[in-house]
């Protein structure tokens, strides 16, 4: 009798004081961010920073520079939140766009500096698609290694769609493949990427 009494006491205690970690829906999160709530920043950072960092680091391929970009991303998200329109897309999509653009800018200005140093002004404009062509020396481990494990056509699709933010239509024209195929390949590539990261994580 005493045992069951104390067991139920314990259950009550645990349910009160050790509640599971809080999760927010996107709508709740938006309200909290508009309210400048520190918990919202914490939630954003804990849930999105690693994914964004992997994307940024894939683009700039430099740890310190990537951290710098991530810092700028969160400052921009926090200070320019009014410019986010939930009608036009997901919060993650908006943050991803900011991260991608800042990463590409950062990479461009770095190249610009190197270029100006060696006084080469004839080739000042970088095409977006050149960003990855010229630096293909991603390590074979980690997130980059996993991307390298994708089938070639999937990897190219992910490069364009995820890291460069191309629309399906642009990809279709660029790669000269039908729009329907682009959509299917994006989907397949995401699925494969997810399976690969899971596998890698388990090892």
């Amino acid at each position, binding site marked *: 009798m005493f045992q069951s009494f104390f067991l139920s006491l314990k259950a009550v205690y645990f349910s009160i004081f050790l509640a599971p970690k809080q999760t927010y829906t996107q709508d709740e999160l938006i309200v909290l961010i508009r309210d400048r709530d520190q918990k919202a920043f914490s939630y954003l950072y804990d849930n999105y920073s690693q994914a964004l960092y992997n994307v940024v680091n894939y683009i700039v391929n430099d740890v310190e520079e990537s951290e710098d970009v991530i810092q700028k991303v969160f400052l921009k998200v926090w200070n320019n939140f009014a410019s986010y329109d939930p009608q036009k897309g997901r919060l993650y999509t908006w943050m991803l766009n900011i991260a991608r653009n800042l990463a590409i800018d950062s990479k461009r200005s770095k190249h610009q500096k190197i270029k100006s140093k060696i006084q080469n002004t004839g080739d000042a404009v970088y095409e977006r698609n050149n960003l990855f062509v010229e630096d293909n020396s991603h390590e074979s481990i980690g997130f980059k290694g996993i991307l390298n494990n994708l089938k070639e056509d999937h990897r190219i699709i992910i490069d364009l769609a995820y890291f460069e*933010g191309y629309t399906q239509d642009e990809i279709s024209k660029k790669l000269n493949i039908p729009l329907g195929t682009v959509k299917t390949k994006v989907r397949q590539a995401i699925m494969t990427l997810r399976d690969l990261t899971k596998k890698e994580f388990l090892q």
Partner: protein
Amino acid sequence: MKVSEVIASGLLETYILGGATDEEVLMIRELCRKHPELITEIERVEARIIEASSHLNEPLNPGLKDKISAQLSFRANAAPPKIVDLQNTQLGFYKFGIAASLLLFVSSFFYILVLQQKLNRLNGEVAALSASKTYMAEELKIQQASLFTINSELRVVSDPSIKKIPLKGMNSLASSSAVIHWNPQTSEVYFNAALLPKPENKQYQLWAIVDGKPVDAGMINPEGDLIFQKMKAIASAQAFAVTIEKPGGSATPSMETMCLLGNV
């Protein structure tokens, strides 16, 4: 476009990656309004993408969060917090309240145990007292009955017309004696057998000697009142005698077994 077609096409993935056109975004928004289950699917795809890209082999510098946090302005710092801190306060209050209730509950539980034990002890005492009271009441009844007997016997003895007749022992009971109280007016006869030894398999029988002849005055009951045993009524007698007879008595006394005799 149907919901299932949208899901199968891969449009949601492109939408989350930021590659959907304005028309596609508009269409997804419309579909979400009509089919809320599509929102769930979008959240699922988004989680899948974030999971796929959150690979930890290149973990983010753990100090970065605080570094960024230090550069942001939060409402909690500037103005008194509204919703969240209210919730905090309430949560704190609830925690405190629930902890207090638990404490109260546990202490009441033990207090009840203590009271229960005390109640058990008192119940035992009450039962003992009640038994003792019943015993006393019965004892009192016995004493009252005894007192009543003594009173009635005293009345008999103190009657001025009563005669006290000592019986002297003879033959086998030479050293014994007995007393008869006799009221000639009411014919009452009382026999005091307290000093007589108990005969084995025999019984004492009292006789009144009336005009030289023995008249049966009754058997002495060895189990009855030995001091004031009421015998048969005798109106007149010159003497009383006691013989030892077989149980139940005899019609005529046997002179050999006569053991007590006393004249009036």
